[in-house]
């Protein structure tokens, strides 16, 4: 089983729908410890990403992911624009010229993207950021591959790890981004960036994993 270019298009479309459905929730999470624009910005950016994909021909997965990244960089704004933009741009660079991705190919691409996010945002684990969902997801993919898991199972395990990482941001004190200005007042709130990152990986498991959503 592998991920095709049309699967990638379907994933981006499904993520745009998911973000639109969770817009209010993301806005509320961001209002608690940030400035309340995360859901609105991501919805606008993903709408632009879907339009850009529709205008992008071919089945080069790298080119598709880069197109999504450029749309996010120019349409999201805030910190999420450069961070999610970099995630997709680096995933695209790591999968350039490929028309399918197997488990290793997907893991390599996601890892390249997450490294890009780390380099751009200079955050560390447990800083209460999107990395707290993304890093465990990459690790879970590597472990699953080592266990000989098939693609669908590995993707579900990575989505579960991202969800756990997202929930683990609740007791953390933010050390990066606007939430860090609140100091201890950021404790007790789930990070909005980790939430939108969990949704990204959950949507990947649902789109590529061939399973029924929970």
């Amino acid at each position: 089983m592998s991920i095709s270019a049309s699967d990638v298009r379907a994933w981006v479309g499904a993520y745009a729908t998911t973000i639109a459905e969770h817009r209010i929730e993301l806005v509320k999470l961001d209002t608690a410890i940030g400035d309340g624009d995360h859901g609105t910005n991501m919805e606008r950016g993903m709408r632009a990403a879907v339009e850009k994909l529709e205008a992008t021909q071919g089945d080069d997965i790298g080119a598709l992911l880069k197109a999504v990244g450029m749309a996010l960089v120019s349409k999201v704004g805030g910190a999420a624009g450069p961070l999610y933009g970099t995630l997709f741009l680096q995933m695209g660079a790591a999968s350039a010229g490929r028309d399918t991705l197997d488990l290793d190919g997907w893991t390599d691409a996601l890892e390249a993207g997450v490294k890009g996010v780390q380099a751009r945002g200079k955050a560390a684990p447990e800083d209460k950021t999107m990395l707290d969902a993304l890093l465990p997801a990459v690790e879970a993919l590597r472990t699953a591959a080592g266990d000989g898991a098939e693609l669908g199972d590995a993707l579900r395990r990575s989505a579960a790890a991202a969800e756990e990482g997202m929930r683990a941001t609740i007791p953390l004190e933010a050390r990066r981004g606007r939430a860090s200005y609140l100091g201890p007042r950021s404790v007790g709130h789930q990070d909005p960036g980790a939430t939108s990152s969990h949704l990204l990986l959950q949507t990947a498991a649902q789109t590529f994993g061939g399973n029924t959503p929970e």
Partner: protein
Amino acid sequence: MKKLINEPDAVVREALEGIESAHRDHVRVIHDPMVIVRADAPKQGKVGIISGGGSGHEPMHGGFVGRGMLDAACPGEVFTSPTPDQMLEATKAVDGGAGVLHIVKNYTGDVLNFEMAADLAKAEDIEVESVVTNDDVAVQDSLYTAGRRGVGITVIAEKICGAAAEDGQSLAEVAELCRKVNGQGRSMGMALTPCVTPGSGEPSFELGDDEMEIGIGIHGEPGRHREGLTSAAGVVERLATAIVEDLPYQSGDKVLAFVNGMGGTPLIELYIVYRELERFLQGREITIERRLIGSYITSLEMAGCSITLLKLDDDLTRLWDAPVDTPALRWG
């Protein structure tokens, strides 16, 4: 919350169209990507200065585009950083061959987007220097936060650097001057009410009738402390003490004092704040040599104020006094 708008999604675009119609003598507007450019840009041989940030802080930054201040401003969505394509467009539009200074307020989004824009501009062989302002003493400056926010000093830095660029100073000199102004400036703000973004329609935080929020930023984010409401004198004592002790400003210092309204506080109250501030500083033998009073870096309709002090020397005073001709700041 009642607002004088047509469509929540169209607020930034329609305001930009209003600015374009109202201020054709000062600026021209690029709509995609959104940039407000000085009408006569680029000025050959002059360092270009651009800034940008989320909308909702008007007149900052678009109101400061014109002779003696900014060459271009990039407005983002409300309280959302603008994007690298806007900043690149602005940089290209103002580059007169002497390079371009990016003045960036220290917010994660602004910093990340301006970093990407500077990379893109350098790839097009435009010389760019970036200076990040971080004057807010309400925020603990440590490895464990995103660092102090850039607030009131940004307006003063744009004015002073704009004058230096008109004088023909080099990019390196103007950037160094910007760092000096930021280094000698400190600010702190407070809120009496939250604000409501057009997109959310909800107050940014809840605040009781008898409470005030100390140490707020300019995006409706909650502050560091919530306290019982006190008098204007009490508020000034609270803000000015934190500011003066941070640099510290000392007996004999001459300063520029900037009393800023957050958007919903009338000028009559800002003058009371100024009165209290002058008394407070007199008590510490600090002389206000220059002052700016009004709502220049705002947070939508939030009620409250911020105080910024800049330690002056003859050079900074001369550059502050130099002529400026923008929609929001004009003298000389």
